[in-house]
């Protein structure tokens, strides 16, 4: 297993370099640059050009790329064009909130999917099955920005149960347990959006995978040997059906990251997704590149994890 993992890590590094090259090319090729977003009658073009030169924006793409790679290799991610912030610290401050949001949503989704997927597979075409299926599909059938707006309208404005936005109640300045509870309250709506728009796929896949396993011979054998239905579900069907589900979990990470773009924007959550949108529109590519590279690392790690789990669960697959 270890050589396999090391091998994959090495491959991952190559991919990162490739991705960085293409992503950098695209961001530099994007029309307009950080300085051109700044048109002000008090700032004549020659001043803008001087600023462009200072940031190296007047250089050809490959020169900018080589310089960027050189700096990154020395551990310097550079400075944000728009704000002058050191990129590492700037993006770093956004990782926590995004992980908090994504992690919570991921955990809730996974638990919900395994539970509801198995339950509906145990009684296919029952009222429960239809109910869960309907609800899960309804959740993914509305664009997430609209779900988010609707939740804000109903649960924050009409009912006043949860706050509309932000990470915490800034004016209150909570600490300790009060801060924890306050953040929890702020988490509910954005997590709900991510779960609603992400759970259905997993629920359906767990259901169909379990359903498929239940039709296998070994399950019939187990049943005929008098193994309880519960144990059949848990020990046999669920375990074996985890196989296709695991590949989906690998995919879930980039999907959650993508989902965080919209969710963080609507809920003004101070995460990476929102920063990426702002950076792209401001052509602030040192920041955008850092976020993209970070996302790439996460996705590669997720994919590696999925493969390792895959091997662990399915005895038929072995990596040498």
């Amino acid at each position, binding site marked *: 297993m270890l050589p396999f993992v090391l091998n994959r890590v090495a491959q991952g590094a190559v991919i990162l370099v490739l991705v960085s090259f293409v992503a950098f090319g695209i961001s530099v090729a994007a029309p307009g640059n950080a300085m051109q977003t700044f048109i002000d009658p008090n700032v004549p073009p020659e001043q803008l050009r001087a600023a462009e030169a200072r940031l190296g924006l007047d250089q050809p793409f490959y020169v900018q790329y080589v310089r960027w790679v050189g700096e990154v290799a020395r551990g310097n991610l550079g400075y944000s064009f728009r704000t002058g912030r050191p990129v590492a610290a700037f993006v770093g401050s956004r990782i926590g909130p995004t992980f908090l949001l994504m992690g919570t949503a991921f955990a809730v989704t996974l638990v919900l999917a395994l539970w509801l997927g198995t339950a509906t597979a145990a009684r296919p075409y029952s009222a429960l099955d239809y109910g869960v299926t309907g609800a899960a599909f309804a959740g993914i059938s509305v664009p997430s920005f609209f779900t988010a707006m609707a939740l804000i309208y109903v649960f924050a404005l009409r009912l006043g149960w949860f*706050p509309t936005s932000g990470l915490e109640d800034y004016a209150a300045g909570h600490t300790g347990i009060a801060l924890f509870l306050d953040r929890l309250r702020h988490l509910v709506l954005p997590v709900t959006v991510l779960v609603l728009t992400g759970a259905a796929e997993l629920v359906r896949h767990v259901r169909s995978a379990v359903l498929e396993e239940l039709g296998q011979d070994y399950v019939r054998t187990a049943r005929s040997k008098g193994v309880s239905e519960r144990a059949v579900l848990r020990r046999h069907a669920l375990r074996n059906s985890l196989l296709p589900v695991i590949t989906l979990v690998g995919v879930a990470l980039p999907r959650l990251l993508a989902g965080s773009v919209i969710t963080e924007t609507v809920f003004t959550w101070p995460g990476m997704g929102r920063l990426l949108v702002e950076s792209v529109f401001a052509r602030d590519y040192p920041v955008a590149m850092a976020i993209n590279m970070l996302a790439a690392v996460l996705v590669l790690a997720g994919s590696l994890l999925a493969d390792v789990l895959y091997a662990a669960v399915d005895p038929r697959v072995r990596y040498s």
Partner: protein
Amino acid sequence: MTRRTFTRSLLLVAVAATAAFGAAQGGVQRTCEVVGGTATIAQWSEPGNLNPLIFPTTYDENIQELVFARLIRPTETLTFEPDMAESWEVSEDARTLTFTLREGLTWHDGEPVTARDVAFTFTAMAHPQYPGGRYAEISTLEGAEAYHAGEADAVSGIQVIDDRTVSFTTTEPFAPFLPVIGGIFILPEHVYGAVDVARWQEDVTNREPLGSGPFVFQQWRPGEFVEVTAFDGYWEGRPCLDRLIVRFGDQNTMLAALLSGELDAAPVPIDGAESVESNPDLQLHVVDALSFQYIGTNLRNPILADPAVRQAIALAVNRDAMVSGLLQGYGSTLDTIFPTNHWSYPPDVTPIEYDPEAARALLEEAGWVQSGQYRAKDGQELALCLFVPTGNQVRERTAPIIQANLRQVGIRVDIESMDFPTLVTHLMPQDAQGTPRAVSVDDFDLFLLGFGIERDPNEYLSYLIPSDMPPNGFNFIGVDIPEVADLMLEGRVTLDQDARVAIYQEVGRLMRESLAWIPLYQAQELYGVGPRLQGFSPDVRGVNANVANWSVR
């Protein structure tokens, strides 16, 4: 920190603003309904830089003006009143302005404010390595060019006379110099001077500003908020609030936060006005602004070079419908390139009426005859492409109206939406090597854009004189009207205000005739205020016009 008790007197509130100027430090009293408490407000975008000399945007300045003060500041009627300076004098040759600072001014860290801080701030803007893009504002100072080129050790036009007196000398009489000074926040030399000017944007001082304004900077959590607290030593008296928090976020979400009571005040998008008005707890403030929207034309395009076509477009577009429908009445149309509430706007300008019949007649006369759905001349269809920058929902919505209106008179318009930086690449084009080049016929036909006067109509100069066509300036439209250029250059050196009014109003009338900019509408700004916040009264100067007097119940 001691809290002084303030007597409640409405009269004093009104008087304080004017009477305070003569008063020495310590003698100033502010009348507050309540002293203390925290207010939370919002804006739609996060500031980028808090060093006021680094490419400031409105979102930056809204925060900067809490922390910093200027020598002089604009009044509600757009003249100037003393801020850190208690008085100023103009020399006889009109080239030298001498400012005297108030006595006893201090920075937030307790250090005294001196004339050297002022000289430092203005000199930094001319520094050869200064990265902030505002050099042009003070380049008319004597010796600024030499210092900027690295040929001198100081700007000879900036003189510190004593601790409280500083003078500025321009190479020739420069009318907009007072407005320029009124737009520059003064930085403490002992803080900002310790940092290499070239590294100002990257330095921590760009994120943790220190000034002499009403509030002391406390913290900025990126993506979340900026927090400031009252400055006890503020020359105009300690602000009523203890603490002010400014959040940033999506406009609809911020409106929701206002409606749910999480915010004390927030800007309101126009289609949110109804929600605020129908909420008994909230009050809607409507403020005139100095910005407007227009259709820009590429005068290099032979179709648009014909004044009859531009006039036909202006007559065919139903601008009243935009104001009543899209702006829901929060705004007005305007008939030339200056905002209607600015002194440069000519009151007698010929109105642009909505008259599709007249538009058709004009086009007919110009040789454009209807052939099928659209008009044509010599086999060429009367077709134009309209570039629409995204990001301003009301402006985006005018595009289909313009398209439908112009179709009714036989002009075909194809709409292309793009984000702002992409539009800039069309207006300020570059060649394949990335070198800025002149605008050609093919770069654009029509575009939508906004323009706002910050302080003085001289800001239009680069947009209107032929020598400033790209790559030299911002005249992407290609305006080349000798009378306009002469007047604009004359306005720069004319000091008499009445004469300047006449000059710029004449420019307004000429641009109305030309219609190189086809003016559309001038939107008002809306703010919603919750029941806790007292004294919130934004005006043409912005949301924080009297922030020191805000208080919370």
